[in-house]
């Protein structure tokens, strides 16, 4: 646990240094695109006057001064697969964003969408000595949580105290200063594969940047796509990405569960590519222009030119009806949603008071998806778009940028994590101090 504290605290210090300097980059390394935003922090509430939006999630304390997107290379299922290609793609996005911002960025906050996240619920309890809950008691109760054996080769990405209970009162977000006998806490621990983090870190270091923060993509999409009451009452954010689909469940403004399905929009594209025997680029184009999940009678008559450049007249003038295309897309989308349903059921989503489901991410833009999703996931389904933030270009306000925008909000006001509290004093090695005191006593 110690090295986790140290590495996470080093990262936190770097983030604070970057905030001091005022410029930080946001890097969303996805399977289909890499988005980079450059944020400038000018202190809180700077843009309040000329912007109708107040500070809902701290988004008014920064402004986006550079934004760039590039097609992702060398990334599969949200994990870096070919290092040099991924590095080049990251570099492209960063360079374009820096050029737009006209400022040099040294710190970057990144998010991972894949890397097989796994959620753990921990709890810990301590008896209070003084009766009054202090900051140190919170550190102690967090340290009292029993860390599960999450296995070698995995790393903790988030460890957020979700709930505090004092004696028989529960549901407290901040028990400091209250009086009680026994303090207990629930904590949500999210681990991911360490190799994915290391690969991403390597790519970022190769771009001469320092990593100032790391977050789960599902979590940050939830931050930006869920509105406040959804976060409070309980909701699931489904981030339908290119290579993976992230699931995050929120209640009481805390993420309590996160998972990812290793299927996404790229799988649909490859289905189209195989089904119509067209190249991936053409398949992607056909998907974005004509894709859908609900076929109507009109779609039988709408013929789509799928083209080709073989020189064979017959081959190059193939057409396919939109109904056929939908017939290819729909089963795959259903499969993804079924998988999401399975994960949510496994997490016990049906026990939440409100079961709002918000679909976001690039693949959520398929027309008719909300209708299909409500059949599979439940009645309360809506399509979510990320929160408005200042200075974000129009092109980057779509649902595909939920992760990037959420990461900006995460950078602006991060949630308290385990390592943000002090390590309890008894965890420090006391022997060396005692020996030093003894040496003083003996010699003076």
């Amino acid at each position, binding site marked *: 646990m110690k090295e986790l504290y140290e590495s996470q605290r080093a990262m936190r210090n770097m983030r604070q240094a970057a905030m001091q300097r005022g410029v930080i980059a946001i890097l969303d390394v996805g399977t289909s695109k890499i988005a980079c935003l450059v944020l400038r922090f000018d202190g809180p509430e700077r843009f309040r006057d000329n912007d109708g939006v107040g500070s809902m999630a701290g988004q008014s304390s920064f402004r986006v001064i550079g934004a760039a997107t590039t097609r992702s290379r060398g990334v599969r299922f949200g994990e870096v697969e070919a290092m040099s290609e991924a590095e080049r793609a990251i*570099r492209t996005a960063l360079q374009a964003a820096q050029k737009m911002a006209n400022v*040099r960025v040294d710190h970057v906050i990144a998010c991972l969408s894949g890397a097989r996240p796994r959620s753990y619920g921990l709890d810990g309890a301590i008896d209070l000595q003084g009766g009054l809950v202090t900051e140190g008691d919170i550190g102690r109760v967090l340290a009292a949580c029993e860390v599960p054996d999450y296995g070698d080769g995995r790393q903790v990405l988030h460890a957020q105290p979700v709930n505090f209970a004092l004696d028989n009162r529960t549901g407290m977000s901040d028990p400091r200063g209250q009086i009680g006998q026994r303090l207990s806490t629930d904590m949500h621990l999210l681990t991911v594969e360490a190799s994915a983090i290391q690969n991403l870190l390597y790519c970022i270091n190769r771009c001469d940047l320092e990593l100032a923060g790391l977050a789960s993509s599902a979590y940050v999409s939830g931050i930006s796509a869920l509105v406040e009451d959804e976060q409070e009452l309980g909701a699931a954010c489904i981030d339908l990405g290119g290579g993976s689909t992230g699931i995050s469940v929120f209640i009481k403004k805390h993420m309590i569960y996160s998972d990812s399905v290793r299927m996404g929009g790229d799988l649909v594209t490859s289905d189209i590519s195989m089904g119509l025997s067209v190249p991936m680029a053409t398949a992607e184009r056909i998907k974005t222009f004509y894709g859908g999940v609900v076929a109507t009678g009109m779609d039988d008559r709408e013929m789509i030119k799928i083209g080709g450049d073989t020189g064979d007249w017959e081959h190059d003038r193939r057409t396919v009806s939109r109904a056929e295309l939908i017939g290819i897309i729909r089963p795959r989308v259903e499969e993804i949603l079924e998988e999401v349903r399975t994960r949510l059921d496994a997490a016990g989503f049906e026990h939440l008071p409100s079961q709002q489901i918000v679909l976001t991410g690039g693949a959520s833009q398929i027309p008719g998806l909300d209708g299909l999703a409500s059949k599979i996931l439940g009645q309360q389904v809506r399509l979510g778009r990320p929160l408005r933030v200042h200075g974000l270009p129009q092109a980057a306000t779509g649902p595909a940028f939920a992760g990037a925008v959420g990461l900006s909000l995460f950078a602006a006001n991060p949630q308290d994590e385990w390592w943000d509290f002090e390590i309890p004093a008894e965890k420090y090695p006391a022997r060396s101090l005692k020996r030093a005191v003894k040496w003083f006593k003996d010699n003076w």
Partner: protein
Amino acid sequence: MRTLKSSSPRGPAPSRMGYRYQRLMLTPLFRRMIRVGLPIGAVVFAVGFWAIHEDNRAMITNKYDEVVASFQQRPEFMVQMMAVDGADDALSRDIRDVLPVEFPVSSFDMNLEEMRQTVEALNAVGDATLRVRPGGILQVDIVQRVAVAVWRQSDGLRLIDADGHIVALLHYRGDRSDLPLVAGDGARENLAEGLALYRAAGPLAPRMRGVVRMGERRWDIVLDRDQRILLPTDDPVSAFERVVALAQAQDMLERDVVTVDMRNADRPTIRMNEQAVVALRRINGIDEELGQE
């Protein structure tokens, strides 16, 4: 797997060097250095490279001197002559001697302050003002020192002014018999007192030969017939006035007195000539004898 060294175009990605270059150019300090430092550096380098050669530097200095000289030699700045005001003929001749100015000369080449000091170094000059008057005239205004006394030293006579400054050498006392004579160490510093003694002389004035400062603290008055009046340190003038009064009333100094010692105001003392003492004793002896008889 394709070959590792991919020969295919690498897409829109910038090369690592290009990326670094762009980041470097976005560094504010570096950008300022390029935009300001580099041009300045280039100019400095070019000038320095050109100035390495002795000829180039000499050319610059020559040209500079030429321009300066041509400006300074313009007729507006030329001084044609010198006018000395406030000095008598001998002094103005001296001044012309000590100021080695070859007319015409540019006023830029003259150091007026230095010249003023040279002029003021002359004994007879009390205060000098030099300026270049319009019309190219070097105007020298002199306030001459006025001799008020003759100062006798072991090596000769000097004229001194009221402040004790030496004005000129004097060869013969007779040349300036109108001025009082002072002598002795410290006489110059206390000249005002000595002159006050002279003024107090009254009827004794024709007999005064001089005043002598004794031991840098008090005055002696020397009269003709080698008579001396020794005055006290404090308030010598009133002591002298007493002597003058005595001399007027009783013709004391007409008698055979060598020294009148006024140093102790309570007990003025007279020393007589030897023959006078003898004569006095004889008279007194006769008186005694007469008394004894």
